């Protein structure tokens, strides 16, 4: 292993673990019935939703190659399949890979 890559991995891991560690420290003083807990619950869900929406609308990496329209069609169709299959998560995820690969090769 080259030392610079190992160093980058260690820095990345530390930056990631820090938020998790501080979260446990804070949790020691928060009861699950408290308003603080409910507020953090809302923050967790909203931050995740913001992250997912950003990944779809302003993607980084390979997804950037597919157009907005194609991404939206695939996500909406997958959500529809999620409901039609009584909230099964396997069908929409498998469908999304095949559908997006097909659409992106078709709309080049």
């Amino acid at each position, binding site marked *: 292993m080259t030392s610079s890559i190992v160093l*980058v991995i260690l820095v990345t891991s530390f930056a990631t673990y820090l938020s998790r560690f501080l979260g446990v420290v804070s*949790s020691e003083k928060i009861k699950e019935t408290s308003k603080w807990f409910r507020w953090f619950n*809302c923050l967790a869900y909203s931050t995740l939703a913001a992250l997912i929406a950003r990944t779809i609308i302003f993607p980084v990496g390979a997804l950037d190659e597919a157009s907005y329209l194609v991404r939206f069609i695939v996500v909406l169709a997958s959500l529809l399949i999620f409901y039609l299959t009584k909230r099964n998560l396997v069908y929409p995820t498998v469908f999304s*890979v095949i559908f997006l690969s097909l659409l992106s090769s078709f709309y080049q």
Partner: protein
Amino acid sequence: MVNSKYFFQGFSCIKRMDSPAIALGCCFIAIGALLKNLGFSIQESIFSTLLTYALPGSLVMAESLLVGASLINIFLAVWLVNARLYPMTVALMPLLMHESQPRWKYYLSCHFIAVSAWLIMKSNHEKIEKENRIDFWIGIGTATWSVAIIGTIIGFIASDYLNKDMMIGLAIVNPVYFACMMVGAMKTIQVTLSVILGAILGPLFFFISPEWSILFGGFTAGTIAFFVGELNDK
């Protein structure tokens, strides 16, 4: 140390209908291929997933390496994108804490906090007595962590056979899986509003500050959802 009955009960989550295995596997296959293209060896790729185990953080690390960012810049960029793990931990750990359990379990197992494991634990915690939840959680975390590591290895080995369209296809699985899980979790006013407002405000704040958009958008959306939910309960 760890109650094997609850550990394996948690571990078996990867076999169920709401299994994160496919979504997680696909994401980390893409990460494995990406790391190989960046010049990582297979050991370094495994080491990265093993220690970081957070997809957006790994992507930011890869991006930063490409542009030759300094270590301090990499630290700040990764910390910023993974800061969402803080509210996620605070929204989960109080559900798992029990005085009969040793503290080290919480400080070690918090490494498993990532969207997939977190959403599974949130939707299943009520089925397990509080005393045993931490062992159940360690089982879920070990399962998802293992899938991520295996995915990275497959992606690294298969990278030469993955063309551009396949990489695009793999990249959509993660947001689709999480979007479905989030929509499935919308059972109370507070969570429903948090998800809808977060999905709107996150991208909107991107126009003000791309780096801070997730945190600002998430904070604003979550706080509004909290107050609306509290007022509604009165």
